[in-house]
């Protein structure tokens, strides 16, 4: 029994996939009771840092759930906004409330639906009613989450448009490469 237990332990540990009882039976010494071995192995690991579990028709070792939560580190890997979305966001920030058509006019190029959707999904913009013109296009504005993300107390913390617009003092930093 002890030898069977060692073999079962090593097998479950080293296997890439859950180990079925059939597979285990093939490796255990002649005449071993597979179910008894699995039970003994489960008992040995009960309450420990690693536990035996049955998953998808097989047996695996698994980190004890209380520890898994504790050991899990969330690595934040924030994305850079694509250039089009960033420009749309900037235009909305300065011209809100404004329609998609107005954004396109300012950018001089069509704005894809996905750019707008990305900003919506991130909670950076929200609808602000509709413009009462033909087609009643939706109006967009920035959200409190936008202020928080960009560490602004209020919208007026943004540099004035005139300060930015004069080409003499415009920053000449390279634009983000489109990702």
């Amino acid at each position, binding site marked *: 029994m002890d030898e069977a237990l060692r073999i079962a332990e*090593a097998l479950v*540990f*080293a*296997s*890439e*996939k859950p180990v079925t009882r059939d597979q285990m039976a093939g490796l255990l010494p002649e005449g071993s009771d597979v179910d008894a071995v699995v039970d003994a192995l489960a008992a040995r690991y009960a309450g420990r840092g690693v536990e035996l579990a049955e998953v998808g028709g097989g047996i*695996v*070792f*698994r*980190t004890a759930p209380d520890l*898994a939560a504790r*050991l*899990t*580190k*969330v*690595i*934040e*890997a*924030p*994305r*850079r*906004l694509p*250039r089009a979305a*960033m*420009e749309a*966001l*900037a*235009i909305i*920030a*300065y011209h809100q409330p404004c329609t998609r058509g107005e954004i396109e*006019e*300012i*950018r*001089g*190029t069509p704005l894809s639906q996905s750019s707008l959707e990305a900003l919506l999904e*991130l909670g*950076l913009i929200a609808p602000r009613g509709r413009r009462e013109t033909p087609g009643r296009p939706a109006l967009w504005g920035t959200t409190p989450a936008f202020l928080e*993300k*960009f*560490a*602004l107390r209020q919208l007026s913390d*943004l*540099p004035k448009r005139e300060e*930015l*617009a004069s*080409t003499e003092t*415009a*920053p000449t*930093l390279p*634009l*983000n490469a489109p990702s």
Partner: protein
Amino acid sequence: MSETLTLHLEGFDGPLDLLLELARSQKVDIARISILALVDQYLAVIAREEVRLELAADWLVMAAWLAWLKSRLLLPPEEVVGEEEDAEAQVARLTERLAALEAMRRAALWLNRRPWLGNDVFARGAPESFSTIDRSGVIADLPALLQAYVAARRRAQARRPYRPNQRRLWTVQEAIARLQAMVGKLPSWQVLSRFLPEGGDPVERRAAVAATLIAGLEMARGGMVELRQDAAWGPIEVRGLANG
């Protein structure tokens, strides 16, 4: 050496390898092997083997060098003057090399006897990762936001008013002129599509096809050319009547 060695060259990775095995067979410290016996054994093996010459260069070079070494070792020292390096030093160098190879061979053997990961011992087959990557966030970078705004505005300023491309549509008159100019110079039947002007976008090309067909029909009606089409959807051919 009383031992009769039956060694075959193909079992060895080069002359040094064979020399090392011969040295080992003397069962003494490599530093104290009998070089003369070693030379004789090596030459005996080489002589016995029918070595293919193209593979044997290394073996033969070593054999020649060993033969030279032996001759120097057997000569009384006073007769060997003016050599760049005396035989004793060369023997020392050879023993050193053999010892170095021997050491590395033992190291390889030592490594070989370690429990190999993946062969003798196994790691966890399905390691778990405790880190989850959260890519939902976005880099909120105020300078980048302002740059984006400036760039969009600047692009808008630089933008010229939109002016659609002028289309240059082939007219029937132009097609007639082209057909008249060309059809007389060509012998016999020609496919009508040869008289299309070159280039143009798809719309312009379609216009040219239509104009050329009408031109052909117009000229046929006027008796200047003949048209024929052998099958429905087949190529339309044209020839000048003056020629026909």
